[in-house]
């Protein structure tokens, strides 16, 4: 067990270092894209685990990201204000403390919402849970307008994390934010990898395969499903933190139904249950709109405008359908066949 854990941490560390190094090769705009896709990756990783391992489809993961984002923004702003005027406001403490406090706030907010949803999810079957999460996404703009402190459609701003003095000559702002994004995402995804290949993952698969058999084996399906939801929400919440750091803004418009569906697309395309696939899906979802933009740039204005923003959605829809219908590799996660558990762990 211990060697397994160490190996996992080493791999995680290596990948993180690779990613950090990669930021030196990218220009500021690409680093910004890397940061945002890292945030999306964190959320998609949580979602793909949830759907792939326990069969619970959430259409509202954007709301969980928003909860994390709001939690981060509100907490970090308060802490920054509290530090202002004290000597600690300069130097490393000035930005690190609000950042960590913000992450804690995000974890609390997303965890809370995720727990509530998880409790509901434990009692609900497929379409009912999906429908509930759909209603949640639709209600987010209203909630932002009604809950005091969330400032409605205009949204809440998150403090700008400046490049620390020691590194100021070395890297630019976008690269710095990409670093933060990579680190937060690594913290979000590594526990998921560990869970997946450990006992928790086994339990989730057992419950998904056959709830009665799992109960006989002493596993409480409700608790496992709710737990999966909470873990998934924490990952999504940290994804929201990453987006808040990179964009310094949290507003309901950025976390609407369209975005929630894109998270599902990313999870499906990558292969439900596969974390590496989640990474590929997140990159696709970030890059495809840009590619479509480049491709339609030469077209006459009216047609170009109609395609911009819409063509990529058509493509995503087609891809989702094709993957679900034709790719057994992706579908195998969904169908609870009577495969021996050892076979499942090989994926």
């Amino acid at each position: 067990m211990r060697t397994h854990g160490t190996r996992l941490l080493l791999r995680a560390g290596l990948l993180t270092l690779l990613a950090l190094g990669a930021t030196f090769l990218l220009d500021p705009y690409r680093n910004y894209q890397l940061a945002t896709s890292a945030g999306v990756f964190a959320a998609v990783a949580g979602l793909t685990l949830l759907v792939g391992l326990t069969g619970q489809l959430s259409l509202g993961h954007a709301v969980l990201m928003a909860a994390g984002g709001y939690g981060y923004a509100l907490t970090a702003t308060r802490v920054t204000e509290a530090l202002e005027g004290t000597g600690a406001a300069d130097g490393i403490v000035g930005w690190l403390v609000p950042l960590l406090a913000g992450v804690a706030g995000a974890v609390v907010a997303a965890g809370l919402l995720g727990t509530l949803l998880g409790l509901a999810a434990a009692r609900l079957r497929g379409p009912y849970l999906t429908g509930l999460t759909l209603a949640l996404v639709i209600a987010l703009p209203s909630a932002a307008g009604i809950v005091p402190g969330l400032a409605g459609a205009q949204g809440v701003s998150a403090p700008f994390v400046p490049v620390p003095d020691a590194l100021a000559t070395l890297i630019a702002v976008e690269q710095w934010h990409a670093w933060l994004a990579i680190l937060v995402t690594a913290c979000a995804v590594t526990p998921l990898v560990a869970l997946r290949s450990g006992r928790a993952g086994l339990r989730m698969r057992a419950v998904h395969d056959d709830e009665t058999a799992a109960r006989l084996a002493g596993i409480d399906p409700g608790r496992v499903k709710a737990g999966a939801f909470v873990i998934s929400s924490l990952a999504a919440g940290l994804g929201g933190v990453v987006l808040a750091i990179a964009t310094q803004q949290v507003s309901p418009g950025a976390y609407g139904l369209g975005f929630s569906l894109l998270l599902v697309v990313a999870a499906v395309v990558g292969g439900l249950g596969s974390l590496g696939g989640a990474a590929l899906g997140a990159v696709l979802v970030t890059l495809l709109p840009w590619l479509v933009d480049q491709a339609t740039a030469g077209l006459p204005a009216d047609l170009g405008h109609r395609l911009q923003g819409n063509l990529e959605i058509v493509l995503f829809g087609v891809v989702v359908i094709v993957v679900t219908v034709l790719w057994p590799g992706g579908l195998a996660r969904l169908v609870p066949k009577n495969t021996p558990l050892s076979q499942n762990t090989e994926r």
Partner: protein
Amino acid sequence: MRTTRSTSRAGAAAVLGLTATTALSACSTPAAAEVPGITDDTVVIGTHQPLTGPAAAGFASISAATAAYFEYVNDQGGINGRQIEYVVKDDGYNPANTQTVVRELVQEDEVFAIVNGLGTPTHTSVLDYLDQNGVPDLFVASGSLTWDQPDEYPNTFGFNADYVTEGAALAQYARDTDPDAVVCVLGQDDDFGEGILEGVELVVGDGEVAQNQTYSTADQDVTAQLGAMKEAGCTHNVLGTINGFTALAVGTAAQMEWFPKWHVSSSGADHPTLVEYLGEEGAPALEGLVSVNYLPNSPSSDWYELFSRINDEYNDGAPYTGNTTYGMSVGYQFAEALAAAGENPTRESIVAAVESGELRGNGVAPLTYSADDHFAYRTVRIAVVTDGAQDFTDDAYEVSEAGATAVTPEETPLENEGIPAG
């Protein structure tokens, strides 16, 4: 064990793949010019607009009109010998997309300035970024008070008359035409509605608005709100609504056999658009509709006539609406600022040109830009729908903290075929 290996393999592949593709494109980026977006014969500017998505209805035609005006100017030789290139990017009214496309505009397209960025939540999300990068943020398409913060955002300037000014003018006109007016407000449930309410309260007094109702763009039924206003005995309704919801309000009230006076913000009072929403049967309810505007959106204006010609020739004969006047006026104002920025414009020189207060614009009153004021219009003119046609009256109001004062409108005369002299 194979799980983590395949995961890390896939993860590494993803990172390397992303790095490779983007590194290749990064290497192909040309070195930045001395002044971004300016060469000897071109000026490149950019904007973010909602062209697609649920909120795009009614806004997509603005950028087309602005682009048509720039084409016209370019055909006549440009400004100081430079052709204006207008890059329009779609953000679908989603602030997350706005962040992405604005960064694209600044870092990839290397625009000289951002002009007429549209929407309050969307543009608010990029204020800090533009400020940090010293990009001129000119003529924001929204009436929010956020754009007038010369200390915080010295490079940001608004274009629209702000919502408070409009609300105050509309309420004052109600008072002036009917001393017994019972004034109520129906506003959008965001800064738009809040601003209009603030303006109305500036005139009638805090808490003296008989009914303040809000609507949400997600719910296309305002029957409940109108019912409350009718019951409260409102005689004059000030609307902080976009076109679709103005039509809904007027139409629903007509169905309830209720015909109060409608005083509507410029964002939702475009007569041709309202007629299209209400249809032949419903259009008569628009008779007597009062609105405010700060641009020469009247068929008797020389500017209107020029813009109609440009629209026919350069905009594929798209229907002429208030958005056309708006878009082309934005274009004219930028051209004026660019001309005033000198033979060799820089980002600093264009901002200085706007702050100098020398820009006149083409509105119902001279522009009010200065070092302390980053708003364009504090005066608005009243328009009324008479016999099925919407046109200006001679009433105009200048709004300050003290309230709304009646003034005489002074429209800028059309000179040099609408092309600012260098």
